[in-house]
């Protein structure tokens, strides 16, 4: 992320903007996958995704290639999660 802003403030900016996405997944894996696949329709790639009620199975949050997940609480079912590109 540090490089992102450094590149942006430079005149040869790579990213013209910083999109942040928010969504309630209703604890559904289908919604989660549909959410991440719908980003191709955005004009600029989503860099930060705030999810409420993410899907959760066997103490594991779903992952998606290219994104790093953060959730709270560390143990138990998380009610919110943030994915960073």
């Amino acid at each position, binding site marked *: *992320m*540090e490089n*992102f*802003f*450094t590149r*942006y*403030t430079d005149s040869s900016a790579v990213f*013209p*903007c*910083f*999109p*942040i*996405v*928010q*969504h*309630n*997944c*209703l604890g*559904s894996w*289908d*919604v989660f996958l*549909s*959410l991440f696949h*719908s980003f191709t*329709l*955005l004009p*600029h790639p*989503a860099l*930060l995704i*705030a*999810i*409420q*009620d993410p899907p959760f199975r066997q103490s594991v949050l779903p992952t998606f290639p290219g994104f790093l997940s*953060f*959730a*709270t609480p560390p143990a138990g079912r*998380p*009610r*919110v*999660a*943030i994915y*960073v590109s």
Partner: protein
Amino acid sequence: MLSVDVFSPEGLFGFPHCSLRVTSVYLLHTNRLPYHSIPPECLFSFLYYPHLVLGDFNLHHLLADPCGSQSEREFIISARYLDFAFDIPYHLLNTPGVYPRFLFDTISRPSVLDLAFANTALSPLVCSWDTPLPSTGSDHVLCVITLKPPALMLPPPTPHWALLDRYAVGEALDAFTTLPCPAGPTPNSLSRWFDISSTRLTSLLTSHALSKRLCPYSKPWWSPRLSSLRREYHKFAKIFRLDPSPLNRSNVKSSRRTYFKAIATAKKIHWSDFLSSATPHSFWAAKRFAFGRPPQRFPDLPGASDLAEVAETLLHHLFPPKPPPSPLLRLIRHEDYTPLTSEAISRALSKSSNTTAPGPEYIPYSVWKSVNRLKPCLLPSLLDPLLAHGFHPPSLKKALGIVLDKSGKPSYDSPSSFRVIVLLRTLSKILERVVTSRLSAQATTCSLIHPLLCGSLPGRSTADATLVLPHHVESFHRLR
């Protein structure tokens, strides 16, 4: 609730702040106060760096959904969160009337539960809040918040009032009712009542008008024929790149010549049409097109390194801060007050030009004239409580400032080389006109105006002054 801090040692988008905090929130209902799982004190705090709070708040509020209805309990619960946020201050980013939640049944109307707030440090960077993507299978729609440096932002889209659907607006206004004014109001409660009521009304009007956005690529002379010529030129150019034969080269040359010639002809025809239909109002526009605009001088003020600091320096110079007035605890309704009528508003509107530049809400007088014609009781019900209590809410004092450079200055490194045109809300100016007409009538009745004063008074003009002057000269000669 989960917060993530984004850190950049170089600063964010050219701003001096190195951090951005994003807080994701999911509020769940509980049976105890504040009836939600997280109190507002945990969500919103005073931070000097940018902070974005977003998520599913499970709250209904009229500022996010102006056309919705809410129970008193819902209003109290949501007002507790939003008032706390606005006091810090945080700004609500949701576009009023855009719904991010659609229930699967066909009975329930769409609603707004997903809210986003930005603190003062982040607000200049927020470009848009939108729901541009299709459904993912959830009853919520994706909300996308876009941050951009202010220098790269286009001006926000404004409603195209000429294309206002007046029939639909008339039907919507019939169903629209103003919220009841609070009894024995305080300045805060009356101000909040007016803000919610006026936002509901302006959102209703804006939702029935198409949006237009000024674009650097707008070409009024462009036509579908030019689009087809451009397509043809690019097609031949592509073929020539794949097969650089003499025949393809000549095709490219001829198509390019035709395309650019058509552009020149279209520009010439548009200019001739513009001049042939020129009116005294478009004289200065014609001069600007013919001779070009003078170069814009951007304030180069010492000690102001970015846009925010330039704006702050200009504001401080042009509008020096004054000590705040002593706060009023409770407003008193004047007993001898004459209620505001739609005729008084019609009279005030009749003197207002439709072409006057509107203020921050972009609603011109022509729209208020239509509203007053379609539902005469609406504007009096909105403005009457303000007059009755002698209170002008702070939201009506917000203005759009257009900074212009003064010509012929030796240098433009001082705020005194610039002037600002202040565009107030048209709703505020209607109220001002009503008060002015009442004061003027009162002054005439009480003989507070000198009998020889002719300027800016109804029914008197320069002709009266020129008739009075010889009369006085003659009477002076007679005395001698």
